[in-house]
């Protein structure tokens, strides 16, 4: 049963990612990206990463996706229904990315991966919190400064008349 759900989620994620990449309507692509991000969050839950799955839902779907949809709305004339866009050089791009995919899958399937025995934790939140405030305190603070800088930079960049 769990196997079935896993493969369903995998195919669902990849199919919606295909829609993101190939659809000509930009808004449809954004909605398909929503389903892809949901599928990735479900994969995180399969990987016992409950906190990361929650962060994925909140930051990606609640933040980045809304930003992207706002970007689409602000840069297109909604009334004239010209939200479409075209792909260029699909042939050569497809060849390169399929070649990359074949290469990666060959490497993945040929490598003898060492898998350690691990046990499902009750929750990862406690340990992640302790790690963030001890071992990774400096990167944590640095990333918060970077977020502040990006916030101010984005506000300055998108101001009228700069």
């Amino acid at each position, binding site marked *: 049963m769990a*196997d079935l759900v*896993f493969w369903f989620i*995998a195919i669902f994620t*990849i199919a919606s*990612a*295909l829609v*993101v*990449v190939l659809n000509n309507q*930009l808004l449809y692509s*954004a909605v398909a*990206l929503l389903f*892809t*991000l949901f599928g990735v969050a479900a*994969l995180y839950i399969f*990987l016992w*990463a409950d*906190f*990361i799955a929650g*962060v994925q839902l909140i*930051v990606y779907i609640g933040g*980045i996706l809304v*930003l*992207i949809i*706002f*970007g689409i709305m*602000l*840069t297109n004339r909604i009334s004239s229904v010209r939200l479409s*866009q075209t*792909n*260029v*050089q699909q042939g050569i*791009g*497809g060849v390169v*990315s399929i070649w990359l*995919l074949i290469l*990666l*899958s060959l490497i993945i399937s040929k490598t003898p*991966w060492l*898998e*350690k*025995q*691990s*046990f499902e*934790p009750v929750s*990862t939140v406690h*340990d*992640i919190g302790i*790690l*963030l405030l001890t071992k*990774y305190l400096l990167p944590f603070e640095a*990333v918060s400064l*970077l*977020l502040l800088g*990006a*916030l101010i930079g*984005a*506000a300055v*960049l*998108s101001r009228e008349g*700069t």
Partner: protein
Amino acid sequence: MDQLSNYLLIAAVLFSLGVFAVMTRRNGIAVLMGVELMLNAANINFVAFSRFGGMNLDGHIFSLFVIVLAAAEAAVALAIVINIYNNLNTINIDDASELKN
């Protein structure tokens, strides 16, 4: 389902699709979506290696940082795209070639 290579294969497919989007799409926001797909693929790899490497949480921390950086990147990239739209009235990134030559 309990195999590392399954997750790595899914991540490889997502990454190739992201590369395809970045190479072929000409709308700035669509290119940004391709970048998001690639970041997600990398995140799946981090979490999968963490899960099959004895549930070491360092991979989780790293993917948290990747998510935060993706948020910062999306905010700045969209500000740039909106600025390009205001100045050139298009977001086709082939037309935004003022710095060329």
